[in-house]
C-alpha cells in the first residue's frame, strides 16, 4: 500500500506527496501531458527535441543543471508517445532548489537560438546512435507505420526522419511551449523523505503564481480496425534474421489491459514461460524471443519479437510462434499457470516499491490516467483475471488480420 496526499493548486497543477523515510533523499517528478502523439505529422520528433531544450536555461535561471549539481542533485527526463516526464533527486534538505528550478522552467524558457542549434545536433546524433548505429536499431521506424495507418503512434518519439528535426525554428519552439506546458497540463509528485505541509508551502510559493494556460483539447485520429495481414521485408547488415509481429490491443485504461498483460506473461515472462521453454530451449528455433505490450495510453500493440537461430527459416520460425499463439487462443491455461503469472506480478510490484523515485513516476502516470490511487488497486485487477479472460483476450488478439509482421533479413 502506497500512501499519499493529493491537492490541486488554483492554477490547476495537481500535486501528490508520498513520504518514504527510509531514504535521506527527495524526488521531484513533473509529468507533462504532452507526447509525440501530439505532434504535427510534418514535425515529428518535436516533443522529444523540446525535452532537450527544457535544459537550455529558463526565463530567470540561465543554467538548469549547475545549481542542481551544486546542491547534490541529479536529474533526467524522457519522452514517450504519450507524455514527457522530468525528474530529479536531491538530498532532502535541498528540496526547495528543485521547486525553484522546475517552477521557473514551467513559467517560461530562455528560448535561446544557440541552445536550439546545439540540441538539434545532439538529437540528430542520438538518432544515429540509437537507430542507425545499432544492429536492428531501425526496427521501430518501420514497424510503427506498418501497424498504424492513421493514428500518430505511427511515428517514434525520435521522429520519422532526421530531416524533420534539422529544420525546426525557434518560433515553433515558443508556440509549442505555450500550447502544451502549463500548470493545468502537468502533475507534480514529490516523494521520499518529505512532509506534506512543507511540500504544500513550497508548491504554492513557487508554482502558485504561474498562470493557467489555454490547452487545446486533444483530438487524435482513430486508428481504423485492421482487416488484413500486413507484411514488410527489410534487409540489413546484421548477423541473424529476426521477426517482429505486432497485434493491435486496447488502451491502458481498458479492463482488458490486465488480462492482456497476463497473456504476455504466460507466453514470455521468466524462463518457465511458454515460448522461452518451447521455442528456445526445446526446439532451438530462436536465440532470444519475447512477448510484451507497449503499454501505451491509447490503443497499443502486443509484440512478439525474436531472433532466429542460425539455419532456421522464417517459415519454420513464424509457424512455431503461431502454434503457441493459437494454443493460448484456443486452449485454457491451467489454474497453476495463471496463479504463477499472478504471483510474479505481485512480487514485481513489491520489488518496484523499493524505489522512492519509481513510486513517484508511477503515481504521476496513474494520476494522469485517472486516479493516483489506482497504483494500490492494480494488484486486485490482476487477481481478478480468470482463465476465460485469458482465452478470450488471446482469441481476440491473435488473428492474422490483426497482425503486422516485419521480416528483418540478414544480408548474406
Amino acid at each position, binding site marked *: 500500500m502506497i500512501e499519499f496526499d493529493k491537492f490541486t493548486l488554483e492554477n490547476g497543477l495537481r500535486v501528490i506527496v508520498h513520504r518514504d523515510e*527510509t531514504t*535521506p*533523499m527527495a524526488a521531484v517528478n513533473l509529468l507533462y501531458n504532452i507526447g509525440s502523439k501530439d505532434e504535427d505529422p510534418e514535425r515529428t520528433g518535436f516533443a522529444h527535441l523540446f525535452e532537450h531544450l527544457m535544459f537550455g536555461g529558463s526565463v*530567470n535561471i540561465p543554467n538548469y543543471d*549547475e545549481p542542481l*549539481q*551544486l*546542491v*547534490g542533485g*541529479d536529474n533526467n527526463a524522457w519522452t514517450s508517445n504519450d507524455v514527457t516526464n522530468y525528474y530529479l*533527486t536531491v*538530498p532532502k*534538505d535541498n528540496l*526547495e*532548489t528543485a*521547486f525553484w528550478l522546475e*517552477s*521557473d522552467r514551467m513559467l517560461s524558457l530562455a528560448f535561446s537560438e544557440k541552445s536550439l*542549434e*546545439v*540540441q*538539434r545536433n*545532439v538529437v*540528430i*546524433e542520438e538518432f*544515429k*546512435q540509437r537507430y*542507425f*548505429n*545499432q544492429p*536492428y536499431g531501425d526496427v521501430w521506424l518501420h514497424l510503427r507505420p506498418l501497424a498504424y495507418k492513421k493514428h500518430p503512434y505511427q511515428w517514434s518519439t525520435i521522429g520519422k526522419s532526421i530531416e524533420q528535426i534539422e529544420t525546426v525554428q525557434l518560433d515553433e519552439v515558443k508556440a509549442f511551449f505555450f500550447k502544451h506546458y502549463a500548470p493545468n497540463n502537468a502533475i507534480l509528485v514529490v516523494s521520499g523523505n518529505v512532509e506534506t505541509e512543507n511540500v504544500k508551502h513550497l508548491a504554492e*510559493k*513557487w508554482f502558485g503564481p504561474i498562470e493557467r494556460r489555454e490547452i487545446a483539447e486533444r483530438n487524435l485520429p482513430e486508428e481504423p480496425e485492421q482487416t488484413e495481414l500486413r507484411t514488410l521485408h527489410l534487409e540489413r*547488415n*546484421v*548477423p*541473424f534474421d529476426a521477426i517482429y509481429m505486432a497485434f493491435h490491443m486496447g488502451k491502458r485504461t481498458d479492463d482488458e489491459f490486465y488480462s492482456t498483460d497476463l497473456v504476455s506473461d504466460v507466453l514470455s*515472462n*521468466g*524462463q*518457465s*514461460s511458454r515460448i522461452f*521453454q518451447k521455442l*528456445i*530451449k526445446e526446439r*532451438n528455433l530462436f*536465440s*532470444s524471443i519475447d512477448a510484451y505490450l507497449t503499454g501505451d495510453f491509447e490503443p497499443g500493440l502486443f509484440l512478439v519479437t525474436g*531472433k532466429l*537461430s542460425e539455419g532456421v527459416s522464417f517459415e519454420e520460425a513464424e509457424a512455431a510462434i503461431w502454434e503457441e499463439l493459437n494454443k493460448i487462443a484456443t486452449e485454457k491455461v491451467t489454474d*497453476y499457470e495463471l*496463479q504463477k503469472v499472478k*504471483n510474479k506480478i*505481485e*512480487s*514485481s510490484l*513489491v520489488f518496484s*516499491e*523499493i*524505489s522512492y523515485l519509481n513510486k513517484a513516476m508511477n503515481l504521476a502516470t496513474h494520476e494522469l490516467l485517472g486516479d493516483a490511487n489506482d497504483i494500490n488497486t492494480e494488484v486486485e485487477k490482476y487477481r481478478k483475471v480468470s482463465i476465460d479472460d485469458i482465452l478470450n483476450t488471446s482469441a481476440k488478439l491473435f488473428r492474422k488480420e490483426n497482425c503486422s509482421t516485419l521480416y528483418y533479413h540478414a544480408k548474406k
Partner: protein
Amino acid sequence: MEKLYRNTAPEFKTVDSIEILGDKRYTLSNDIPVHVINGGSQDVLKIEFIFDAGIWYQNSPLVASMANSMLNEGTSKYNAAEIAEKFDFYGAYIGFSAAKHDASVCLYTLNKYLSQTLEITENLIKDSIFPQKEFETILLNKKQRFQIEHQKTNVLAKDEFSSLIYGKQHPYSNIFDESEFDKLDINTVKEFYKTHYIPDNCKIIIAGKVDQSVINKLEELFGKKAWSKKDNLIHAKHEIQLSKENKSFVCKDDAVQACIRIGRPIFNKTHKDYTTLHLFNLILGGYFGSRLMQNIREDKGYTYGINSIIISHLKGGHFVIVTEVGSDVCKAAIDEIYKEIKRLREELVSDEELNLVKNYISGEMLRNLDSPFALSESLKGNLPFGLDNSYYQDFIRELKTVDAAKIKTIANNYFQEEDLKLVVCGPEDCRNSI
C-alpha cells in the same frame, strides 16, 4: 504572499557526512563469511553467493561464464525447466554473473517464500549436473549474442582499447575469437564448476529484511549440510602487457558514427591519490556538468553523450573517455578532448567548480547508498579490496582535503598526451582522424 526572487537560488545545505547502514558479520559453521545488511521497508531479500570463479581463474575463454550460466540448467534433483518453474511460481528472480574475479549467484525473493527458493538455490549451487543438450543451447545462444554485440562500434572499440592497455591475453581484456564457442568442451566447464563452487571459495551477502530465521536457514542449508571439500587450486598468474602503440583505428564501413576511446592504465581505489583522481575524472567527464559534456555535447553538439570513467580492478585499473560522434566531426572531437585534458594540466580548477563537484559527488553517494540492496552491491565491490562500505565515509572526509593544486598534479603526472591511448572505430574516412 512571500516575495519571490526567481533569479536567486534558495539556500541549501551541503552533505558533510553520510550515514551508512553497516553490515553485520556472521560465519557459518563451515567458515563461510556472511555479511548482513538489514533494512528497507519491504519484506524482500537479496541473497548473493559470491565465488572466486571469475574470468581470472579460467584457463581458456568462456569457461567461467559457461560454468556460471549452467548452474541454472539442471541438477540431479530438478531439470532446467523445473528450476525455472519453481523460481517463477514463487515470484523470485535468480541472477547469474561471471565478472573478472568474482562469479555469483544472486537470489531475489519475498521473505515469505524464502525456504522454498533458498532450497532450490542450494541445490543448483551444490549439485548441478550440466546436461549436454542445455549446454549446447546456452552456448549457441551466447555465440549469437556475441556475434550481434560484435557488430557494434562501441564493442569493437572497447576490445581494441583493452588489448592496448592490458594485452590481448589478459583476463581484464577478455578478448577471444568467435571460434572459441565451437572449441569449448563441456568437461572443462564441469571441472571448473566442481573445483571453484566450493565453501572455501565462497562468501555471502544478504540484504533486506533479515531476521534470525533467515540466518538460521542459511546455516542449515549452506553451513551444516554436506558440500564438497576444499581443493588446493593453483592459479595462473596474468601479466599486464601494455602496448607500445598509442593509436589504433578499427574500420567499420557501414557505421554512421565513430566511436572514440581515449585513456590509460591507472591505479585502483586503494591508492592514496584515488580521491583526487576521482575528482579529476568528475571534472573532466564524470557527470553531466563535466567539461567534456559541456564542450563536446552542450556547446558543439558533436555527440549524444561523452563520459569518462575509472575502472578499479583488483590488480590494476584504467581510465577511459568514451563517446560516439558524427564521423564528419571525429577529428574535431578528438582535438577538443585533448584540449580539455591540456587545460587541466595547465590551469588550476576554480574554487567554484571544485566546490560544485564536491557537493555533487557527496549527493551522488547519498543517492546511491540509500537502500540495503544498493549497499550490498557496493559492499560486493569493496570486499575484495579489504574494504567495507565505511570506505565512502572516509572518501567524503578525504574529499575536503583535495585542492586545485592536487588535481593539477594528477593531471601532469598521469595525463600527458603521450600517456594516452587512442582508439577510433568507424567508417574508413575517420582513419585520418587519429
